[in-house]
């Protein structure tokens, strides 16, 4: 039999745990079917938007150099570490009001520049020498780059700063301060739309609009599309192909930087191995939407977010990954070039 040894102090903690009587801990249990569905939609939408943001950066590079960029998620991970370092060094979690908002905007911008530069550098060092090599060699280089970035994250996590828990456990997950408090922004019945949910929309929508504008209407955007469609012809037009590729790595990376900050604020956890899932989701979203297709990536991201939420909610969490991949495979069997994809060049 259990023999409880309870001292006064421990009893006090227990009493605290039961402060308002047992029922107060019970989850509401009053959510109606519709409320549950709406709550799941909110969750799915927010997660989907974050995935979409990572995926458009991913698909941009993907469309141009045909590189399955395994390092993209890990780039986002380093972006999150950069943001956490900045937050810790400047004590940003204590900033409130207008200062806090301005700080957040500055943080987004700084992280974007950081990730963009990093992505540009990785391209310059690891991928550019392989431009004429086969696509598979490029793939292996990307796998290698992913490992290197993961390791940089491990080093970074051991930085003796308070936000990295003094650096004593480099590998452990770190809490990201709640720059936007996870409080309800508004509630509809018992459905909570939290402030981070709102933040996700506020950041991702303008970025997607901006990117669409950039790609469709600016000279650089058109050059990017031209290089993606036929690099030799683009070079014959006087387009500096390498520069355009570099620029798209920078832009794609900086979108990853934005995504990293939003992700960190939304989930409040960063860890050196989190890039795997971020990259994987982005990859699935990009392919699902059609390689190199920006609206497709957004659609794919939203779909994955929603499918995950619905599967967690109505099937079983342990089957969620299978459900996502199952749907992906089904879609590709019937639409072999993704939802919005153009016909694929037949080349591996």
């Amino acid at each position, binding site marked *: 039999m259990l023999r409880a040894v309870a001292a006064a102090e421990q009893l006090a903690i227990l009493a605290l745990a039961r402060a308002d009587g047992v029922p107060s801990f019970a989850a509401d249990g009053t959510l109606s079917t519709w409320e549950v569905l709406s709550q799941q939609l909110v969750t799915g939408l927010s997660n989907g938007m974050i995935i979409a943001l990572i995926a458009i950066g991913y698909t941009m590079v993907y469309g141009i150099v045909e590189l399955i960029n395994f390092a993209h998620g890990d780039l986002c991970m380093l972006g999150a570490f950069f943001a956490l370092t900045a937050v810790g060094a400047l004590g940003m979690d204590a900033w409130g009001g207008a200062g806090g908002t301005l700080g957040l905007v500055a943080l987004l911008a700084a992280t974007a520049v950081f990730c963009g530069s990093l992505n540009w550098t990785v391209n310059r060092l690891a991928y550019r020498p392989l431009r004429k090599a086969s696509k598979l060699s490029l793939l292996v280089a990307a796998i290698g780059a992913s490992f290197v970035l993961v390791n940089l994250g491990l080093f970074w996590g051991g930085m003796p700063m308070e936000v990295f828990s003094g650096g004593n456990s480099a590998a452990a997950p770190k809490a990201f301060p709640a720059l936007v408090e996870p409080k309800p922004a508004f509630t509809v019945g018992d459905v909570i739309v939290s402030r981070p949910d709102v933040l996700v929309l506020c950041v991702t929508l303008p970025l997607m609009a901006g990117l669409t504008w950039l790609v469709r209407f600016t000279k650089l955007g058109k050059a990017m599309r031209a290089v993606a469609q*036929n690099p030799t012809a683009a*070079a014959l037009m006087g387009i500096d192909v390498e520069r355009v590729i570099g620029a798209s790595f920078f832009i794609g990376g900086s979108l990853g930087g934005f995504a990293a900050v939003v992700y960190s604020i939304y989930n409040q956890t960063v860890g050196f191995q989190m890039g795997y899932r971020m990259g994987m989701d982005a990859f699935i979203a990009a392919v699902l939407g059609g390689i190199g297709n920006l609206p497709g990536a957004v659609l794919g991201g939203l779909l994955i977010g929603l499918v995950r939420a619905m599967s967690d909610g109505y099937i079983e969490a342990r089957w969620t990954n299978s459900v996502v991949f199952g749907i992906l495979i089904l879609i590709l069997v019937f639409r072999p070039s993704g939802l919005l994809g153009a016909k694929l060049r037949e080349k591996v």
Partner: protein
Amino acid sequence: MSAPAGRPMLRVQGLKCSFGQAEVLHGVHLEVHPGEIVSLIGANGAGKSTTLMCISRIHRSQGRIEFDGQDIGALPPEQVVRRGLAQVPEGRRIFPRLTVRENLEMGAFIRSDRDAIAQDMERVFGIFPILKERSSQQGGTLSGGEQQMLAIGRALMSRPRMLMMDEPSMGIAPLLVAKIFDTVRNVLRAQGMTILLVEQNANAALRMSDRAYVLETGSVVLAGTGEELLRDPRVREAYLGH
């Protein structure tokens, strides 16, 4: 042979190019003078397209490539275009998912004078009115002949002083071939454009060229004026089919 006097606009000397261990150009020499139409004929696989790609610096090569008296053999491709040497590549290489208008804009990528670009675009539309009709269609939806017109128009958009055209008649309906050759002869030439033309259709090419070179397995084997070569028995035997 009767090369005109004066400084050539393009001079290629000892151009060599290899893929892996296989050398495909063994030292090509050719010259194009201002205002000339020069054609480069030869069988499939003789190295005609490779020569143009080397001049445009898409392929790496050895030997000397001079444009306007300056060595361009070490420049990146975009610098070659900036110097005024544009190419209409083989197979047209239209950007299939850019609109016709955007394709033309890409041709003017090196320029930033918006008004002049707009004027030039109108000029291209004047030469090829069909492009104007199709201006908001995606390039990939055009017919072969229309794509060829677009490719020529696109190359003109960089305001080149010299144009290299690679097989403009390939895979195009005969009616449109006539139209394209007509454009080359009567519009471009009239504007004083210098042209280096690669063509399989030796007969048509020689008829409109001032001079021509015959390329065989990576080397120039014959050169002369268009008429000389049209009369040359070797050429008649090998390329004109009689």
